[in-house]
């Protein structure tokens, strides 16, 4: 059993900034999808009723205090991105509870909210608005955001002319301009040069110092080892191990060395 005892902080009575209790998420399986009205009318209700669901996540319990970083590791398809989407408020839990005490800033896939036809300036406002900031606040923070991204000369150019690194810098800058209660990072730091990555980790450290909790999904185990306060290993939607970073990573690495295969959760 690759189980590591849950860390003491998850004891009942100590509510964290992020609290996940017995989270289960069921998602629709793609195979039986009836995508058009024409199909529905031709094939009838019975066919639609045969849609199958699968357990994307089950029995996840973890909590995070202010300023802590949770490293989430696991193979592809283990449910890491689904877990982030639940934390972001996009996918509702099928069972269990998720509570986050404050604003959430997702950093999944840099520049997801960007429209390439618009200029950098217009995108800052649009992306900021999608993150829930109002125009006045964005206007007030605009200069600081642009300075952090180092894009002072590019703000009036259309984003389609930006390099992917520039898009990443701008996206990160806007998403972290207002310290959120929870920051979600999905291997996004893989984009950008060493200088940018340094600035990103500096800013994340700064935010953590101000009380932002961070959930980091990464395949870079060394990064997790050096940054995380607590770790979670997801395997096929279940908790394979959670708690002390060294122990969780050791268990995960052991399983990798064995060449994958079943994990008793």
């Amino acid at each position, binding site marked *: 059993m690759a189980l590591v005892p849950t860390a003491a902080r998850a004891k009942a009575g100590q509510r964290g900034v992020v609290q996940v209790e017995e989270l289960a998420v069921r998602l629709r399986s793609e195979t039986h999808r009836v995508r*058009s009205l024409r199909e529905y009318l031709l094939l009838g209700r019975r066919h639609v009723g045969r849609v199958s669901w699968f357990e994307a996540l089950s029995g996840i319990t973890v909590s995070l205090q202010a300023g802590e970083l949770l490293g989430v590791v696991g193979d592809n398809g283990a449910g890491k991105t689904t877990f982030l989407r639940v934390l972001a408020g996009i996918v509702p839990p099928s069972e269990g509870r998720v509570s986050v005490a404050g604003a959430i800033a997702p950093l999944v896939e840099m520049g997801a909210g960007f429209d390439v036809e618009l200029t950098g300036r217009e995108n800052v406002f649009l992306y900021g608005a999608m993150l829930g900031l109002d125009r006045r606040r964005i206007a007030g923070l605009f200069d600081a955001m642009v300075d952090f991204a180092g894009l002072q000369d590019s703000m009036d150019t259309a984003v389609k002319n930006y390099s992917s690194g520039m898009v990443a810098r701008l996206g990160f800058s806007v998403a972290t301009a207002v310290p959120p209660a929870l920051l979600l990072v999905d291997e996004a730091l893989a984009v950008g040069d060493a200088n940018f990555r340094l600035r990103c980790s500096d800013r994340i450290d700064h935010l953590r110092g101000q009380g932002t909790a961070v959930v980091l999904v990464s395949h870079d185990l060394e990064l997790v080892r050096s940054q995380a306060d607590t770790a979670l290993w997801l395997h096929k939607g279940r908790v394979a191990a959670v708690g002390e970073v060294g122990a969780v990573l050791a268990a995960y690495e052991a399983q990798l060395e064995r060449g994958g295969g079943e994990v008793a959760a």
Partner: protein
Amino acid sequence: MLRGTPLARLARFRDCLWLLAARALSVRYRRSVLGFAWTLFYPLGTMVILSLVFSQLFVGVDHYSFYVITGVLPWGFFSLASIQAADSLLAASPVLRKVYVPTVVFPASVVAANFVNLLLSLLVLPLVALATGAQALPSFWLLALALACLLAFTGGVSLLLAAVNLFFQDVRYFFEGILLLWFYATPIVYPVSVLPEHLSWLPAINPFAWILLLMRGALYGSVVPAGAPLLCVAFSFSVLAIGWLLFHRLERRFYAWL
């Protein structure tokens, strides 16, 4: 997240709505030669062509071109807004899969952008009236009421389409077909008097025909029967309410279809 009522969520993200609407308006004309003038070009062009083709047929209509444009403008708004709204959620799925934004913002911004287009096109009407010799004295209150009903009706239909099109992606194409029939079932290019006896019930059950009646009453000077404004307000806002309620009931399931 899903905090507060749907209306509260929309209010919190209202800046997002306006920015999306501004984007829809600016991107369309950003690099075109005529720019914003294209918005007017289409209805004016339609008006000229239809006048050339049909004015000999419908001789009984005073200032036929003006009659046509007062029908084409609101219809253009309704058809364009509803079709674009139908696609709006699907088009926004890259964003909606990553960031939480109240989904209603997307169809709402589409309707808002098209409504701004309509208002600007209406500003040009007095010039068209002058050119065609028609009266250009709109009844402002009636116009405001007609526009409110048009907006409410379009909003309700757009919300419904946006939601249903997520689940059944061909609904948009079905609706385009319906719009084609609907166009001819509404007295946009022809006067009501032209309809034969056995089809005279058609405008009575067509909600858009009622809204058009108010619009033309305000702009063109048609006679508006006593109960018409109240009827329009009643059904337009009911459609909006139904669209809103159904959209938000279905919203819980969107995530699996984006």
